[in-house]
Every structure is written in C-alpha cells, then in structure tokens.
C-alpha cells in the first residue's frame, strides 16, 4: 500500500490551522489504525483512532438495528465542543474536533471539502 501520509497530514494540518474553531483532526483506517493526524497535544493518536473507527461502526449498527438507514456522520456534542466523525470512502474515517463556538454550517462545508480532498489523496 502506498498511501502518501505526508499529503494526508498536510491536508489535516491545513484544516486545523485554516479553519477557525477547528481544534484537531485525524484520519483513521476502518479497522482503527491511525493514518494521519493533527490532534491537540496530549491526545493519544492510537486510542483516538481505535475509538473513532469503533464509534462509526457502532453508529452504523445503530442505524441498521434501529432502522435509521446508512450512516454518513456521527456528532458528539459536549459542553466544550463537537467531535464529528465522517466516513471518508471505503478506506478511512475522518474525525474533526471543533470548539463550541464553531459555526456548524461552515464546519460541515469544510468537512465536505476536506473529505473530497482526502479521498483523492487516498486513491
């Protein structure tokens, strides 16, 4: 497999530095392995990766068991901000962490744009 990790890291880094209120991002494989990340200091990349893939998978199960259909995205809303998990094709899951002040519409647009960029880089 020849994934360009540097390219993925650069896309994530640009998302974090170029979008106000985005605090971190990680791209992980569907089996929970880290591919690239730009996470806040102190967050364990490996733990975040396993957790993200497991959550999205659990979300898919909930969608299926509770007849909610296919799952594209999962939101976790806490009093300090958001964690948004988005399926990024067959090969990856994108996690974006944003502060409470983030404008959700803008955030979703950025996630959509970055997802498309990441999918291209993964091909």
């Amino acid at each position, binding site marked *: *497999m*020849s*994934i*360009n*990790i540097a390219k993925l890291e650069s896309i994530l880094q640009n998302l974090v530095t170029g979008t106000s209120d985005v605090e971190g991002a990680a791209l992980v*494989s*569907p*089996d*929970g*392995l*880290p*591919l690239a990340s730009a996470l806040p200091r102190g967050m364990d990349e*490996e*733990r975040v990766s*396993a957790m993200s*893939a*497991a*959550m999205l*998978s*659990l979300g*898919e*199960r909930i969608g299926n068991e509770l007849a909610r259909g296919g799952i594209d995205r999962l939101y976790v809303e806490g009093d300090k901000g958001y964690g948004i998990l988005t399926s990024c094709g067959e090969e990856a899951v994108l996690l974006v962490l944003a502060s409470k002040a983030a404008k959700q519409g803008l955030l979703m647009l950025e996630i959509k744009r970055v997802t498309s960029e990441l999918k291209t880089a993964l091909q």
Partner: protein
Amino acid sequence: MRPELGEFSSIVCFKALVTGAEEALGEKAAMITLIAAGRSRGKQLAEDLGIKGKGTSDENIVPLLQKALGKDGTRLCIVDKIEHEGALIKVYCRETICSAGEPQGSPRKLTFTLGAIQGVLEQVTGLRLRGKQTESVLRGGSHDVVEFETIG
C-alpha cells in the same frame, strides 16, 4: 494474582466475552476493540521482552515470543515462524485463543491474537503495520497465518 485460582482462566470465558461484545457492539466494532486491545498488549510485551527496535530478522524474536505467549507463557498462541515475502511479514501461529473451540468451517477470524502480534511487530520493526489473516486452521490451513504490510 489469585491465591487459589492462579492466573489462568478458561477459553470458554474468553470466548463468551468476545461473542458478548460482538452481540452488544456489532462484529466490526468488537473486532476493532479487540485488535486495539491486542496491540496494546503486544506493545507492552515487546517492551517487557526488550526486543523493541531489534528487527524481525533477529533470531531471538520467535523463541522469545514462543516463551512469552506459548506453553510456558500466557498461552495466547504458539508462534512457529516469521517469514518475509517482499515487503510483507508473514507470521505463522497455531493453537490461537481466537480460533480455539470453533468448529471446522467457522468464519471466525483472529482479533486479539492478530492485534497482539501486530503490537509486538510494530515495536520490533518501528513501522506502522496493517494485518490481515490469510489462512486459518478453521478453514483447512495448518496454521493461522497473518500477513502484515507497512502503512505509508
């Protein structure tokens, strides 16, 4: 450790834990969790054995893994050999806890065992790996074989 029961527990309980997790979380989420748990265990094991950064060609790796994980160790599995095929690392195991007690033809795959071996190899090689089971004793193989490729 427990004064009367010692450190070992039955495979029956381990398998109940696996199937229970699969039922509650779904097979995929349970698989991710068990592989992640195995990787943590494998990484810790490599540190304990002092084989971090030694490389898989080191002749002591397989005997050390056999001792740590086999009959005289925690009895997770028996590692018979580690082979290189181009950029792939192939690990041949038997009597793995993940395949134990399963009927012939069962589709069950290695999870915790795969993760544990992956964790060890990642520490030994210093590389980030992705593992895939390619042969199973449950599906006609003589070994449970796991192939690891480097990510990136």
